[in-house]
């Protein structure tokens, strides 16, 4: 059998990015994927005739545009489409619409609170300032703060300089950010509960934290730091669904001679004399390579596909204790028409974007309480978008599909394991809540797919269904991701690397983890670095 320069385990978008850069640098690359489709959590699947669900991730703003350009992803079929016009729904059925133009957007918030309409611009400026900083770190390898290598010292200096340039006062604010809760953070800006709740929701998406839990302010920032063509905080759709991103990356990988093997789950990473030798597939096949890169999360990598005996002491325990609690569900629904939402004008711009079924701050916190108890809430937070209203390729003309992301959904239930019945009961709470805001919604349903953390883990291999491949708290961010001392993509066994969202800069469809890992591998191979620097918005 053929010997490869590098084998990448997992054809998630980061594995594909990593493979594309290694192949572009001339390496003989193979990506092995357990499923019969590629993309991991960035995937489009036709679950019923003519409807293509973005089964897991559904919107895009973190994708590094420099990678898009550098790997010619447009030529490989990728097109990102910004979407507009989100409607937020409150407890009493009240709505808040995000209009596209500044004037109408201001008037809409003023309708709810004049004070908050004025405060909104200060929040936007502050968020942009903070996100500019984080964005600078995305396509860079975090420095090891304990190392004295020139590169680490330079990187530390870069970070220090970048942060110091904010000024002392802002710096303190910023540090507070990492430890504050989303609700506390917003308390400084707004008076209205509904507005606070609406602005706080990015702080809980995907995380096992509540709006009042310290650390959720950072999650908020993580979700607004992205951009679509420089519009910071905006989100876009991939034409053809999120799988279009993975497919384009696969196109780039193959263009440079890389290979992909699906239905090829890895059972074990082979290690000899503390050095990787290749992988053993679940079917027993052995594939050899000089380098092995894992796109799996840190817990899965070290506790599932490696032998504890092959690891230096302490790593297995670190991986086992890696915070990767699942907290989200996803309900994908095919519809025979556009739902009519109460209190939302039915026009081409506003009834077509996203929907946020919120309630209020209390609703969000109560939903979190349920999660802690191992239950799902009967009144969950749902973030929805109707991609087919923007993307003609994902549903038959005139029909639609709606992506519903649910916070929270527990990975383990208090009353025993997940069953198909419980899964469907969870799904029912979701359509019940939507129906309350869109009477007649249920009659439009053609097909639906309910995904709890249990399904997400089984299908995509995200441990506990954690969407970020590990919680984004300060103890697991930057040079602490996945573990202190291992943030530079090199793992404790020689020639083994990690490239998934468990590494810096974490979860989301960004291609950054995979690209950063490729850069480190090329450095180790003493090859020219072909991974580009990030586009700068700050000059």
């Amino acid at each position, binding site marked *: 059998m053929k010997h490869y320069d590098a084998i990448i385990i997992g054809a998630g978008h980061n594995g594909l990015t990593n493979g594309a850069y290694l192949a572009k640098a001339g390496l003989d690359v193979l990506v092995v994927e357990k499923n019969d489709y590629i993309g991991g959590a960035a995937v489009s699947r036709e679950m019923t005739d003519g409807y293509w669900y973005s089964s897991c991730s559904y919107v895009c703003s973190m994708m590094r545009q420099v990678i898009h350009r550098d790997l010619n992803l447009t030529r490989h079929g990728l097109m*990102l489409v910004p979407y507009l016009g989100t409607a937020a729904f409150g407890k009493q059925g009240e709505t808040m619409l995000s209009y596209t133009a500044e004037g109408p957007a201001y008037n809409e918030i003023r309708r709810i609170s004049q004070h908050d309409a004025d405060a909104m611009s200060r929040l936007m400026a502050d968020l942009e300032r903070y996100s500019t900083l984080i964005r600078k770190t995305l396509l860079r390898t975090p420095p090891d703060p304990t190392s004295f290598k020139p590169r680490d010292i330079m990187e530390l200096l870069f970070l220090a300089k970048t942060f110091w340039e904010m000024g002392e006062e802002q710096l303190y604010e910023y540090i507070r950010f990492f430890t504050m809760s989303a609700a506390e953070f917003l308390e400084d800006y707004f008076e209205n509960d509904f507005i606070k709740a609406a602005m706080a929701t990015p702080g809980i998406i995907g995380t096992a934290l509540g709006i009042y839990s310290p650390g959720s302010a950072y999650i908020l920032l993580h979700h607004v730091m992205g951009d679509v063509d420089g519009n910071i905080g905006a989100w876009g759709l991939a034409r053809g669904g999120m799988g279009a991103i993975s497919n384009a990356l696969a196109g780039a990988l193959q263009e440079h001679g890389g290979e992909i093997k699906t239905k090829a789950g890895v059972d074990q990473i082979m290690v000899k004399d503390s050095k990787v030798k290749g992988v053993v597939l679940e079917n027993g096949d052995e594939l050899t390579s000089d380098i092995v890169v894992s796109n799996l999360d840190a817990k899965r990598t070290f506790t599932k596909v490696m032998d504890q005996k092959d690891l230096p002491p302490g790593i297995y325990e670190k991986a086992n204790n890696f915070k990767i609690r699942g907290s989200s569900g996803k309900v994908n629904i095919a519809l025979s028409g556009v739902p009519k939402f109460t209190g939302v004008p039915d026009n081409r711009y506003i009834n077509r974007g996203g929907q946020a079924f919120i309630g209020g701050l209390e609703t969000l916190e109560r939903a979190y309480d349920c999660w802690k108890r191992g239950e799902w809430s009967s009144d969950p937070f749902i973030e929805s978008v109707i991609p087919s209203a923007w993307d003609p390729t994902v549903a038959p003309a005139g029909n639609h599909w709606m992506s519903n992301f649910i916070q929270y959904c527990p990975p383990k239930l208090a009353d025993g394991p997940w069953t198909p019945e419980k899964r469907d009961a969870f799904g029912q709470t979701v359509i019940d809540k939507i129906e309350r805001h869109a009477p007649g919604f249920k009659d439009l349903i053609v097909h639906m797919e309910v995904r709890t953390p249990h399904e997400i883990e089984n299908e995509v291999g995200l441990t506990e269904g954690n969407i970020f491949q590990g919680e984004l708290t300060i103890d697991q961010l930057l040079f602490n991701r996945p573990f202190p001392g291992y943030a530079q993509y090199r793992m404790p066994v020689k020639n083994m690397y990690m490239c998934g969202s468990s590494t810096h800069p974490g979860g989301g469809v960004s291609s950054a983890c995979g690209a950063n890992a490729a850069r480190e591998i090329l450095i180790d191979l003493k090859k020219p670095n072909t991974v580009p620097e990030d586009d700068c918005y700050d000059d």
Partner: protein
Amino acid sequence: MTTKPSMKAFTEQVTELPPGLSPVDNYAGERLMTSPFHERQAALNLRDSWEAWNGYKFANHYYDVEYEYICIRNLCGTYDITPMQKYLIEGPDAEAMLNRMVTRDVNKLKVGRVTYCCWCTDEGRMIDDGTIFKLDEGRYMLTSGSPSNAWLRMAAFGFENVTYVDKTDDIGALSFQGPMTCEVLKKMGFEGIDTLKPFGIMHFPFAGDTIMISRTGFTGDLGYELWITADKGLELWDALYEAGADYGIQPYGEAATSMARLEAGFILPYVEFAESLKTVHFKHDQTPFELGLGWLVDFKKPHFSGRAALLEEKKRGPGYVLTKIEIEGNKPAEESHLYRDKACRKEIGWVTSAMWSPVVKSNIALAMIQPKYLSGDIWAEISYKKEMKPRWKIAKCTVVDKPFYTPARAKATPPPKF
């Protein structure tokens, strides 16, 4: 309108009506003409963003420039090209007359086909560009961005058997562009539209009249232009918007057009070129060779306006040539000067249009550059503002041969479903 009662009180007090309330529109002469589609377009122009083109009221944008642009690339949209000048040129001498006027060989044009062309002064300076539709033997439609009546009279000089009629106000025209356009036209019942090749023309019965559909446009994408008698304009609009509702149909204006055309590498008057007849300063206008339109000049033709001068220009080589460049970073290089060296000592050209391209995620521009410097380093000096503060940077440029965005669907027949 809460202001009405008080206004009324005001008018009762004064004998003379205030100008705004006069039964006679004393400002009528100031107002622009409106196109046959205006009523519908005005209702959708949520931003009241209007400009003027050849005396017509004409939208810069309707809702949001980027949104309208993305509709062109992702769904479909209409752009009102009624103000574009349209001339019907007829008679046994029509072909010979056009052939003498434009630089391209019109003999080669078959009935039912369209060709892009330009025309020049005797000095070989470009007057305008446009399209010629061969409607029948001896029957053509010429379109141009600016009014050309006076030039047409000169161009027809000496030809006995040719007439030209300005049809601009009689024809309503919509450019209908985007990947979903063919699906929408199919849904409207224009059977066989999917077999129409780029630059082809078809006619269909519509509303007791005939609609002409050409597979042409200014976006570099799949698209069509729809031509109808002006008084059938609203009927066409309504039918199109009904069929297009499920395909995200959206009107778009000049701003979105300008983005799409730059990605396609197309030129605009008063952006890339100055119309020769209106240019004050000698050589502030351009030749087709300078604009990268040398392929439109057919020297195999024995004679056409500007031939001798252009032949000489070709031999000598143009002083500047319009070039597609990509610029590092993401600051659009609007109005930038270009240099041979990073120190900006040797100036070699300037940028004519620049933008961030959302679809290719690249900072693109068209620029006039001295040909002898095309192969070496090119640097752009970019001025911009960051929260009011003026800044500048020097960015490296790379010459690009092909248009920035060329989706395969633009050329495919039948076009793909999406």
